[in-house]
């Protein structure tokens, strides 16, 4: 993990008012919703959205602006670069989600509404962590694949297509289509229903294993893509 790169990523986010605006909306709206709806806490999936907002262009933009070349000329492994970006996105998404959730929880308890127990909150945060680092990994892989903000574009298009596929598959009763749609959606948004996992006997590991597989595969793919990337800084000739 590269500390300077981690911090530089955070400052990169802070320098973009658009991103901050969208982030604030995505973080605060669910909190408002939950506060108004009798103390229900926001669902863990919100952390995925935050990770997507933070992760858009996380590698692709560096390639487009050319800053990647200059950083990679330093003694830093490309794998370190990828992992640092992943950690930055995941932890930032989780931190924001966590802060908003805890705030909502405190507000809820203070105003006398019936809220979750600390155990529930802890479980929610754990699920959010899986959401955040999962989505971050998928986006990092896409970002290593295409320049600029193509990563989030692919993710959105992929999600829409998968939704269509699963809906059409449901309506027309085409099992493969429904399955394909569902699997794609789960791949794009890796997560685990921890309550189900921890509450069932025997403990079903398949969900956790699927999450682990998706995340490690995406990170490995991103690293391989970056390793193979030929960086050309040539402008008009020479």
């Amino acid at each position, binding site marked *: 993990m590269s500390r300077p790169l981690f911090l530089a990523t955070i400052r990169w986010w802070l320098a973009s008012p658009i991103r901050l605006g969208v982030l604030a909306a995505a973080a605060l709206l669910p909190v408002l919703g939950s506060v108004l709806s009798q103390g229900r806490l926001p669902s863990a999936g919100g952390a995925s959205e935050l990770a997507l907002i933070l992760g858009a262009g996380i590698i692709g933009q560096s390639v487009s602006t050319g800053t990647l070349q200059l950083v990679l000329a330093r003694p830093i492994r490309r*794998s370190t670069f990828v992992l640092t970006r992943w950690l930055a996105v995941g932890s930032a998404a989780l931190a924001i989600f966590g802060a908003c959730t805890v705030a909502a929880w405190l507000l809820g308890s203070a105003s006398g509404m019936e809220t979750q*127990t600390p155990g529930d909150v802890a479980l929610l945060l754990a699920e959010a962590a899986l959401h955040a680092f999962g989505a971050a990994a998928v986006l990092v892989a896409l970002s290593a694949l295409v320049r600029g903000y193509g990563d989030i574009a692919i993710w959105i298009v992929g999600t829409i297509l998968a939704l269509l596929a699963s809906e059409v598959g449901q309506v027309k009763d085409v099992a493969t289509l429904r399955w394909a749609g569902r699997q794609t959606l789960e791949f794009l948004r890796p997560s685990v229903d921890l309550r189900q996992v921890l509450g069932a006997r*025997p403990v*079903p590991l*398949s969900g956790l*294993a*699927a999450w*682990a597989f998706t995340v490690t595969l995406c*990170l490995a793919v991103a690293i391989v893509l970056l390793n193979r990337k030929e960086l050309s800084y040539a402008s008009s000739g020479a």
Partner: protein
Amino acid sequence: MRPAAPESTRRPPVALLAAAAAALATWIGASLWERSHPPVFADLVKWVPSAVAPDSASGGKPILYYFTADWCGPCRVLRQEVFSSEERARYLNEHFVPVIVVDRMREDGRNEPKVDELLRRFSVNAFPTLVVTGGPGTGASPQTGYPGKAKTWTFLMNAEQTFLRAQFKGR
């Protein structure tokens, strides 16, 4: 790809690939195993199966019938939010006789006679349904569906109060 020296800035992610392979193997293995050993979602309430449940209140505690089915989605949420909560489960265990009634009409095409009887007695036609009663001849407070954690808990508390008042009056 040329084999890269360990010093290389482009060292291939061998550890990650190995982890991915291991995770994939676990996923496949676990999925296959779970197919033959379907996990049962347990909660913290000490449910008494309907077949052996008493018919009337015992030890000053009303009976809480929980009518459910495996395919019922809101039932899962009810279990997660109310029955899996430590303090709530503890309260239920201490103040009620919790009886679980599982409808298997869809899976088996028929039900156990006791299940059928209970379904008929309380006119249960949707799941989840919660019924609090002191036994035949006493009143019964039902809640159909899952209107949320707060409302459910309120219902349970009110139902308990109703039972206790009836008991008290009865003395």
